């Protein structure tokens, strides 16, 4: 991924994130989150994680954030009024965040850096030997394309089969829980 694209998407993402806290109107905040996630999805794609980038857009932006917007509109929330607040929590929060950033920079300056390995036709073709010959994955790899979705599917249904099933149960439980919570309680 060319450097300038990385910085463009990073800037979109961080500005979106900053706008989330800056806006008073919840709807604006929610749309800022969407912006932030679009930038994030760009970064994912830049990291050759095409599938994750797509579900970031589809699931997070398309489903979860729409859910947020639904709820905001359902509750009909007004703008948060400007409150005359004591400065202490604001300053405390900023100091906390600042300390965190300082620590982050400290950690990163100490840890060894690493560049991304090249994913060209040779390396991909070499990797194809680990997959059944003639299969879709091997074929794609030999052709010099990264079969991202196939690889994730392969990993998910071989190494992560049990967690995947459990995840299905979790979603079911969450669905039932949400129904139970949303039901109008008998007075």
């Amino acid at each position: 991924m060319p450097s300038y694209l990385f910085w463009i998407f990073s800037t979109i993402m961080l500005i979106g994130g900053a706008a989330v806290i800056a806006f008073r109107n919840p709807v604006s905040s929610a749309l800022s989150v969407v912006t932030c996630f679009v930038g994030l999805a760009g970064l994912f794609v830049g990291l050759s994680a095409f599938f994750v980038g797509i579900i970031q857009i589809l699931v997070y932006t398309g489903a979860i954030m729409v859910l947020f917007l639904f709820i905001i509109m359902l509750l009909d929330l007004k703008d948060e009024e400007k409150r005359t607040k004591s400065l202490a929590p604001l300053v405390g929060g900023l100091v906390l965040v600042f300390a965190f950033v300082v620590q982050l920079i400290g950690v990163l300056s100490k840890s060894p850096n690493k560049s991304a390995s090249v994913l060209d036709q040779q390396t991909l073709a070499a990797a194809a030997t680990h997959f059944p010959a003639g299969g879709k994955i091997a074929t794609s790899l030999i052709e010099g394309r990264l079969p991202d979705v196939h690889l994730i599917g392969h990993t998910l249904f071989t190494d992560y089969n049990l967690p995947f099933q459990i995840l299905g149960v979790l979603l079911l439980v969450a669905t039932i829980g949400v129904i139970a919570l949303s039901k109008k309680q008998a007075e």
Partner: protein
Amino acid sequence: MNLAWILLFLPLAVAAACQLVLPKSPIVPLVSTASAVATLVISFLLLGKIETHSFNWATIGDFNLQIGIQLDRLSTGMMIVVTGVGALVHIFSLAYMKDDSAKNRYFTGLALFMFSMTGIVLANNFIMTFIFWELVGLSSYLLIGHWYQKESAADAAKKAFLCNRVGDFGFMVGILMLWGITGTLSFSEMAVPATISSGVIGAAILCIFCGAVGKSAQLPLHVWLPDAMEGPTPVSALIHAATMVAAGVYMLFRVQLSIGTEAFDGFAGTTIAYVGGFTALIAALMATQQDDIKRVLAYSTLSQLGYMVMAVGLLAGEAGMFHLFTHAWFKALLFLGSGAVIHACHHEQNIWKMGGLLKKMPITGITFFLGFAALIAVPFTSGFFSKELILEAAHEKQPLLFWIAAFVAVLTPFYMTRLFVVAFLGKAKSDNADHAHEVSPLMFIPLVILSILALIAGYGFVNAYAPAAPEHAGEFHLNFLFWVSAIALIIGAGAAFLLYAGKDKDPLSIPLFKNRFYIDGIYDHFLVRYFQDAFAAIIHFFDEFLINGLLVGGLSRGAASTGNLFRKLQSGQLQAYSFAFGLGVILVIYFTVFL
């Protein structure tokens, strides 16, 4: 287990059984009474035996602490008095306390008292005497305070206990001194080495005498006895007339027998005699102005105890013990008689609200009269013989004391005649006295038995059972002493009869006597205020500030303030929690990565 041990421990077993096994049972009074009668029977069986039984209770180095029983004429005779009066008082109490709500406690207390008193009488060493001495104090406290709901009764019990404590402190010092002097605590082995100076031995005896001053209510610790009349009347008869107060005299005489009369010859004996003499005099003077029937008898008891102590001090302990013997019967009679009167008059104790009781309660009246005759020493009653012997001893040794005693012999008929004339003769002075009627047989049978004893106890055929009696006890001589006491009797009784017959209120008023020489007041206003209150202030400081403030309150306040401190952290603010959480994350990173 021979009879002597049964005699000692039967009342204890009964008291324990009554308290622990049968606390609510209706048979407690009967059990207690049966035990008193049984001890009387055992006392008769043991009469005159001379034996010693003992076992080691504790051994400390080469010192053996013994629990032992010494049977001789003194102790067996004394046991007759204790169990005899005790049994009759028990029987009397069956009727007197019939309607009391706490009569089980009362009879348990009586059994405990019988045990303690038996212990004092039978003890063969000083440690045992002291233990039972304190037990007597305890049971006396319990019985005086039987109606503890009344504040005056609770205060009287406390006062009795505290006064006894004062005396007992001296008693303990005296015991230790005697132990140091003679090297033994056993009565039978006690002998004073010739090397000991008479001053030291005298001081030891005076310390021992302190115990007797407390228990036998001599000056200046006499104040508890009149107040102890707050207890039930049978208790007054048993404890505060016949037995417990006599324990001091008994113990003194026991010591006199053990270490020999020579040790008492000197300032110790003289001091004892004068304390006794002045107690007799002052108590008799106070008695002349009391209106409460039991208080008159209480002061007369003080006065008679003064006689006995005086006799012991005059080295005539036999005469003293003889007087103790006769006095026990007639004073128990008078107290039980007054109890019958009080019972009949619906708990009226003021003699000026009685009157005419002789006609309404003939048996009580006549028996009371017999006791009264013995007390004022009408010739040929028991009191006459015993008092005569004390006067004789005083006449021989201390003429001054003789005249004091003779003056007391005038006062005694005076105040007793006043009591009898006002309460029993004339006409009824209140409704309660008007409605009085004769008491039940259970109450008058003890009175009759005691009145017979009051008459005959002085004669030789009875005084053979006395704890001690001079050789010519019960003999009658027309001599100087007889005329002195006869004239004293006539003057006292005659003056009182002329003064009080037919009167509705007291024609005499002597505030000094009525207010008991202000001794109680002095104690209350000086001793109590300055000592008790100061001590109470110190205790209060300890309790309030150190215990309550620092230990108890401090701990709880510490816990509460620590809790409040942490309460502040629980603000309920979501942001505060997340801030704390973030701070924790940063600290963890700091400590793991940068440190």
